[in-house]
């Protein structure tokens, strides 16, 4: 195996080039290098942002095509959209709440009617007669429970 030969692009030759530069030239190159790195990073992130943007647009178009809701991002004002969602929800909520309250009040009324009916039964003559007739049965029941 032969030893590696120095080409014009080898680090050693670069060092030679740099050694001939003045301090101010080196600083200037360093500055340029730093700025270039910033620009390249920005360009890279910019491309990524554009890809994300396009992907988002495609997804929105597909959603539109399939009749789904489009993201609020495309509405002039998301506040308006949110307000509309809130109003819709709220109206549904009120309707449901009113229905629940109405149902509760109906069942309360039913309970009241039943308790009135029960009270009327307890106050009726037939109930008093039945109770009187059942007195011996109750005595026997009490007696057997004691045994």
């Amino acid at each position, binding site marked *: 195996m032969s030893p590696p030969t120095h080409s014009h692009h080898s680090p050693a030759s670069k060092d030679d080039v740099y050694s001939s530069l003045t301090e101010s030239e080196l600083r200037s190159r360093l500055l340029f290098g730093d700025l270039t790195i910033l620009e390249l990073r920005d360009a890279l992130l910019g491309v990524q942002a554009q890809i994300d943007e396009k992907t988002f647009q495609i997804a929105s178009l597909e959603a539109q095509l399939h009749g789904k809701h489009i993201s609020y991002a495309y509405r002039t004002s998301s506040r308006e959209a949110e*307000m509309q969602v809130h109003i819709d929800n709220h109206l549904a909520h009120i309707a449901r709440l009113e229905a629940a309250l109405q149902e509760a009040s109906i069942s309360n009324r039913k309970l009241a009617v039943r308790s009135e009916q029960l009270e009327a039964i307890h106050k009726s003559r037939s109930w008093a007669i039945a109770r009187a007739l059942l007195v011996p049965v109750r005595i026997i029941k009490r007696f057997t429970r004691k045994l």
Partner: protein
Amino acid sequence: MTFRSPRFSIITPVFDPPHEAFERCIATVQAQTFDDWEWCLVDDKSNDPWIRERLLALQAHDRRIRVHFRNSNGGIVEASNDALALATGEFVVFLDNDDELHHQALELVDETLCKDSIIDYVYTDEDKITETGKHYDVFFKPRWSPERFLAQNYCSHLSVIRRSLVDTVGRFRAGFDGSQDYDLFLRVAEHARKIAHIPQVLYHWRALAGSTAKDHDEKPYAFVAAMKAVREALMRRGVQADVEQAGEYPFQKVVRRLTYHPRISIVIPTCGTMKNIFGEHHCLVLNCVRSILDRSSYPNYEIIVVADTVSSPESLQGLHSIDDQRIRVVDYDQPFNFSAKCNLGAVLSESEFVLFLNDDTMIIDNDWLEVLVGYMEDSDVAMAGPMLLLENHHIQSAGHANNPTPHNFRNGFASDSPGEFGVLAIARECEGITGACMLVRRSSFNEVGGMSTIFPKAFNDVDLCYKLLEHGYRIIWTPYTRLFHFETASRPDGVEPTEVELLDQRWRRKFGVDELCRLQ
């Protein structure tokens, strides 16, 4: 038979609620479209006898309802903890005995929880209702914002938390009455793997006489407890800071005590513009630099002025005549490009932080740098900016907002108002900071490629902020330090059409959506 725990345990301490309000509260729970819940009600020895009867009837009617009667009145903390002790659900839902849930509240929370199994805490938007049932004060909340949460308990209602986490952090603590929920949420936030926000009003907070919903002044002890809760939270997190009241408003102002003073490079791009300020003709950059030198109490900074070679000779001579080792003037001989000038200033400095400052600004507070750098103690904060004022003391910028397109939030508004829900009175996360004054962590700035030179005049700040947000960093705007910004004097007027197009190509999806500031 095996017992399966329900998805949600609704936690409600009960103490002498108004009859009608309590009935509506019950109706909203019973009307839920999602039925895998249990309701843990603890009566804190109410005085009204009907409450006992009503609770017993409720329990008899629905097996999902569990009631406990306390022998003595122990206050909201003890009653809430007793209710938590009854709970068997995976998540606990906090509901006050006179408030209302949206009928789909539990369904929508469940839907969100199903999307990500590591969510430990969910909060939703809320509004208020009067005694007569009129709804008002809709609070469109931001997504999880830790800095804002130190200033106000904005999560509040509706909060749904994993029960095991509530148990881990020790449930409600005595000594925080009125803000016991805030204290709990602060501790939960320190352990939660993920906190999610549902941008829908799912809770209706009833404003009755004597309740905080009606007026914060109704319960002054609650604010004292809130300050205490934040103080303790900061101590637990190892943050050295004082907690004060934010002016006259019921919000907490967190003032960080700097453990050291990292070096800051203040980069000022200039064209040497002259302008009338407060009735006098000034060279803007000289006025700006002098205000920094005269006012700043911060001990460790340098000023790098990046001046166009076409700048007026008097401005450059004026700068050179200031005898201060901290000032460096760098020539810029390329065609005008604000971003390139900022980048040049940044790479010439070696400081941990770079502060980009327009030459048409003027410092007001001595501690402006201390305030801004304080926010950078959290390593995920990449940028902080102050309240900027116009010459007439109205707001020039209170950070950026995205709705409908990126703009300076509350431009032209009075600066002495707290804004809706305190948005102008508290330090908070935002979508961006105007380039006129932004403190940036150098490592983050380098990571995202600095300011994009494809935006020579406008939107370079918007683009930089979006890049930082995309990288998961937080941006903090604060009203606790203010600067004058005599607007658009540091760069040529107008916006290049290509800049609008380029911003559209990169970030159009973000317009109209602002999860951090949902006000308009």
